[in-house]
Structures are given as C-alpha cells and as structure tokens.
C-alpha cells in the first residue's frame, strides 16, 4: 500500500558560496501528507523550488512516480539512460531535476502554491481555474485550430472544464465570487483559490508553501479539514511547508525537520515533537548543549 510518490536523494543546492540545502534525502509516501518544517531560512522553500523545477539542484536526484509502484525498479536504468522520464501504460516515473519547471507541472503532475500568493489578479476566480486546465483544454481545442472554428468537441471540453472549476469553487466556498477578479478576494479566499487552482491541474503531488500563513485559528482549522478531505477524496499526495504547528501536527502523517539546509529529524508528528534536536533548533539550547547538538547535526 505505502509506496513513495517522491524520492529526493542527496539533494544539494548551492547559491554561490551559500549552501541552502545540503545532502538532503527524503521520501513522500503516496496518499500521505508530508510536512516540511524548520526555522526561517532552513531551506524549505529551496527544496520546494528544486522539486517543482524552479531551481536546478546542484547535486542530487529527485524522482517522482505515479501509477503502478513497480515502476520504481526502473529508477537506476532511467538515471543512467539520461532521459527525463519513463512512461508506460500503467504508470510513469520522472526525474524532476532534469525537467524544466513547466514540464514538472505538465508531465510529472506536480502542482504548487506560493508563499506569497501568485494568482492572476486581474482575471476572475473562474478564469484562474480555467487557466489551470490549460493542458486538457489545449488538447481539446486542437491547439487552437479546432477551438477557433468552434468545433463541438471543444465546446464540450470547455463545459467540462467549467464544471470542474465549479466543483472546486464549491469546495473552497468561492462559488459566489466566481466572476469577481481574484485580486478582489480576501486574503483567506485567495489562499483557498490558489489551492483550488493547483488542484485543477489534477496533481499527483501537491506542494503547499505555507498555506496557513496569516490565517486565524478558526480559518486554519478549516484549512486542515479541507486538506484532509482532499487527501481522502482525491489521489493526491501532499508536501506541506508550514509554520503553524497546530496544522502540521493535526494533519501530517510524516514530518521532516530541516535546519540550515540539513535534515535534523524525520518521523511521525509525535516522534518529531519530542525530538531533542528539533526542540533545540526551534527553542535554542543552553550553551554547553549547543556544541554537542551541532556535532551531532554535523555542523
């Protein structure tokens, strides 16, 4: 049952002399919510940007697989072949570090949200969700040729797309605001719309970068419930960066803690909560313990 959807191995990202992420390995299980936490500047967003193809990692392998889990067996041959991915009728395996960012979203079906919300402000909520279905609609419109002459199959596809957008607007409670520009929605609504937009791409892996930032406790409880229901009803695994520990502890199956670009803990929420290194990273330690802890971490 539990096979990984994402495997990050020995990921290192350097910006000039700065090592943002150092030799990080992690796995995200299929159908699980994996949280990535750590103090500010720990390199969480850098990891996200590497996974989603916005940064090209200096070293390391990022592999994503969906469909039949036995495709993982092809990982080594794929790596040696120098190709980007291995696609079969029963599933696909991709090496994300070899793909440009739009391919990561289009082929490997990794969707993401952004720390500072990046909606199309001047387009309506509905349009935002329609843009997200670009791949499907583009194919249905015969790369604009059939669409331009009003071919019936395209009209049907567009109706389906609107239907799907409507579903996600309902799920996020934005149906009433469907025809309002995204820039006019409240902060919480914009955050929900961004998640809905990411979900409209039918992702295998959804990467959420601080979805609960700026929400009040009531709203973040709603968000937790929403994310859990997405996981229940859709075959989407999630990778989550979050500072709100209530949300993290409540919904994640697995927590990975980063500090200074290095993984310091990895386990269930309960294990991580009681980990000395994590407590040290978040709360600081008394002076004599600092040396010991740093030696353990490898600094």
């Amino acid at each position, binding site marked *: 049952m539990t096979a990984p959807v994402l495997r990050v191995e020995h990921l290192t990202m350097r910006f000039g002399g700065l090592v943002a992420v150092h030799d990080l390995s992690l796995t995200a299980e299929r159908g699980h919510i994996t949280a990535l936490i750590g103090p500010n500047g720990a390199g969480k967003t850098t990891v996200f940007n590497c996974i*989603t193809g*916005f940064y090209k990692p200096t070293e390391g392998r990022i592999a994503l697989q969906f469909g039949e889990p036995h495709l993982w067996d092809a990982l080594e041959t794929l790596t040696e072949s120098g190709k980007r991915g291995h696609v079969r009728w029963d599933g696909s395996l991709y090496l994300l570090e070899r793909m440009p*960012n*739009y*391919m990561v*979203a*289009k*082929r490997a079906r990794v*969707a*993401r949200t*952004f720390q500072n919300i*990046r*909606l*199309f*402000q*001047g*387009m*309506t909520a*509905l*349009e935002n969700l*329609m*843009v*997200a*279905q*670009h*791949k499907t*609609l*583009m194919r249905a*419109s015969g*790369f*604009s040729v059939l*669409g*331009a002459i*009003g071919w019936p199959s395209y009209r049907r596809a*567009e109706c389906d797309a*609107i239907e799907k*957008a*409507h579903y996600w*607007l309902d799920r996020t409670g934005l*149906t009433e605001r*469907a*025809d*309002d*520009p995204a*820039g*006019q929605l409240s902060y919480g609504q914009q955050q929900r719309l961004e998640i809905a*937009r*990411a979900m409209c*791409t039918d992702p295998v892996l959804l990467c959420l970068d601080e979805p609960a930032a700026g929400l009040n406790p009531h709203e973040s409880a709603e968000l937790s419930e929403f994310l859990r229901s997405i996981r229940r009803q859709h075959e989407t695994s999630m990778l989550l960066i979050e500072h709100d520990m209530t949300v993290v502890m409540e919904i994640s199956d697995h927590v990975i803690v980063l500090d200074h670009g290095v993984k310091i803990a990895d386990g269930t929420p309960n294990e991580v909560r009681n980990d000395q290194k994590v407590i040290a990273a978040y709360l600081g330690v008394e002076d004599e313990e600092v040396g010991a802890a740093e030696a353990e971490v490898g600094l």
Partner: protein
Amino acid sequence: MPDEAAKPAAAPAPGPDVVRALREAGVTALIAFGLFLPLIGFNTVQNIRNELVLETRWVLLFSMVAIIAALRFAQVAFIAPYLAEQRQKRAARPVVEATETPWWTNYAVLGALVLYPLLAILFTVLINGAPGGAAKWIDNFGIQILIYVLLGWGLNVVVGFAGLLDLGYVAFYAIGAYTCALLSLHFGLSSFWLLLPLAGVLAAFWGILLGFPVLRLRGDYLAVVTLAFGEIIRLVLINWVPVTKGYAGVSSLPRPSFFGYPFVDAPGGFADRFGIPFSPLHRLLYLYYILLIAVALSAVIISRLRRLPVGRSWEALREDEIACRSLGINTTNSKLAAFAIGAFFGGIAGALFTARQGFISPESVNFSESALILAIVVLGGMGSMTGVAIAAAVIIGGTEALRELAFLKQIFGQDFDPAQYRMLLFGFAMVVIIVWKPRGLIGTREPTVVLKERKRIDASLVREGHG
C-alpha cells in the same frame, strides 16, 4: 449603495461657496496687484532727449489683476468642487461594474461600416453634384483607418494580451508589404489573392524567428531588441538595392481584381464587363469592402482566440509568468504564438496597404509608424479591441481631418497649414489621456468565461505587461 455613500459627503456643500470664493479672489487680487505693480504697472521709457521717463499702465495692470481674480474665483467656486465631486464619484464607484452593452452593438457598428462609403457617395453627390469627391472619404478615412485597426489589433495581441512590449511591430507590416512587392517583382506572382495569405504566413514565420532568441528577455530589454529588429528590417530594405530597389521602392504592385476582372478603364475590366461607366470609385469601394471583411474576420478570430486556452494563457502570462509555469503552461510556446499571430495580422495589413497604394518604399515603414501603432494600442486601452478600434479611428481620422481644416487659412493667413500641428495635437492628446485615463480609453477587462454574471474588471487590478 454607491449613491448612498456619496450623498452624506456631498450634502454640506449644496452650491458653490460664493463667499469663500470672493474672499479667495480678493486675496489673490491683492497678491497679484502687489506683484504686478512694479512689473506691469510701471514702465520706463527713454524719450527723445535720452531721459528715462516713468510711465504708468493702469489699464493693463488692472485688467491683469481682474483676470487673475476671476480665474481664482472660478477655480474656487466651480472647478475645484467639480473635480472633488468627480473624484468622490470615482471612489464610490464599485471596482467591478456590470456590463450593459446590448447584444446588437456589434451588428449595428458593422451595419454602419457597410453603409459608410455609400453614404459618403450620397452626400458628395448631394453637395457637389458628382461622386468624385467621395474618393477621399472612402480612401483616406475608410480604408486607411481600417488598415490601422487591423495593425492595432495585431499589436494588441502581443502588447495588450501577452504583455510583451514590441517596439518594432512595423517590421511585420514591412514584411507583409514587401512579400507582395518582391514576389510580384521577381517571381511574377500577380494575383493579389495568392499574395495576401503568403504575406500573412511569411510575417508570422518571421515573428516566430524573431521570437525564439528574444523571448527570454523581458520588459525594457525586449522592447530594445524588437526596436532593433524593426530597424534591421528597414535598413535591409534600404540597402539591399538589387532585390528591394532601395529608397526608390517597388511600384505598380498587383491590386485585387474582382473575380478576375481588374478595375481598369479598358476592355475586359470590371466596368466594361458589367456595362457600367468606369469610375475609380469602384476600385476604392471594392478595397474598402475587402478590408471591412478582413477586419470583421480578424475581430471574430482574435476575440475567439482570446477565449481559447491559448488566449487565456496570454493574459495569464501578462499577469504572472511564474504562476503560469507552475500550472504546466509552456510560456515560450504561448509567447511565440502571440508573436506569430500578431505578426500575421501585421503582414495581412501590409499586403492590404500595397493593394491600396500600389507602391511600397522603406519610407512607409520607419519607426514613427511603429510608435503610431503602439500609441493606438496604448490610447485604446491595452487588451481592449473596441478601445483600439476607437483609438485608430480617432488618431488616424483626426490626422486626416486636420487636412480638411483649410478654412483656418482665412483666419491665420495663407502660410498656416493645420496638418503641421498634427504632432503637437497628438502629443497633447497623449498627455490628456495619460492624465485622465492612464489605462487607455477602455481600461476595463472583459472576463473570457462567466459562471453566473458578467462583470467588467477594473483596470487597477489588471496588470500591464512587464515583458
């Protein structure tokens, strides 16, 4: 709702505040008097004996003071409250407005455009007794404006939709026009109907060719490279004399024929075949309707494209390129499509331009032409096809109308040529638009898809392109 919000604020000042205005005017008059007394009130002149004599100019002084006091009075009593009210109205207006354009607007406009040349002929016949004078109205106003509408819409795809600032758009116009010219000159292709699509396709091809290297550039850098591309094309046309004939240009280009019957005063021509007296108006009318069909078709195609995924990806690209890529949109392909389609319409416009002039030279494709088309797009409201069409009609029609103001010579003297003031008025119009409507005549955006209620999106939310 907005009306209720505006009322309480406006209530305390029901009419112009005359007392305050009078007081302000008095103060201003005093200050003006103090300033002008030494400057205007006294004047020193030398008399015959080289003596300095002090003259007083009370009439001039008091009239100046009176003018200034009156202006101040008008400003305090009328102008300032009016502006404040306007500002309040603007603030109270909801950002999203419902659309009220009735469905038949487009048909009404199309009908008016179909009737326009006929009405022009009718009025000229009524006034002059002969239809000859109508040529000016059909050609300079009708055909020329329609060509610029086509160019404006083409550039609007690139600048307005995709947000890519293209300063060398005239290059595609040149490619379209010279495709017709050179293919007929060197390869003897004499059918306009064959050259027209070729012009569009070749221009689109060059659009893609230019697009590939430059699309990684953004904003100002993209603008500079496209500007350079426009200049390169023009310089090649000037200097490659064996092929392009350089400055001399290419003349006697093929004109569209009516199903094989050319518009000539000869046996086998259109007039001869249909047994009507020859008139140069036939050709102009025909060209006008060809252009009208071309413009109507482009309107349909471009507005459809905008509602297709590719069009939505252009606008999404203008809003946020990074978000586009995170949704799996290949932004390079989207930009190339925008460039190619923009260039296609530029090429078609170029071919139709040769059909109008029968002559093309590098003079017609210099940078000022690019700037003019860009001005049409910016003044019209980037992204709004209606706005661009209105702007083209106003700018091109306005320039042409200046030539019609010959009666002003009776006032300003024979040396006065109103057309000389074209650029001055053009600049003035630009400044007025930028101050009054910084996002162009039509700054609101129509959503491409609607769930329940169609609402316009205010310009303040829509991003302008940044490359």
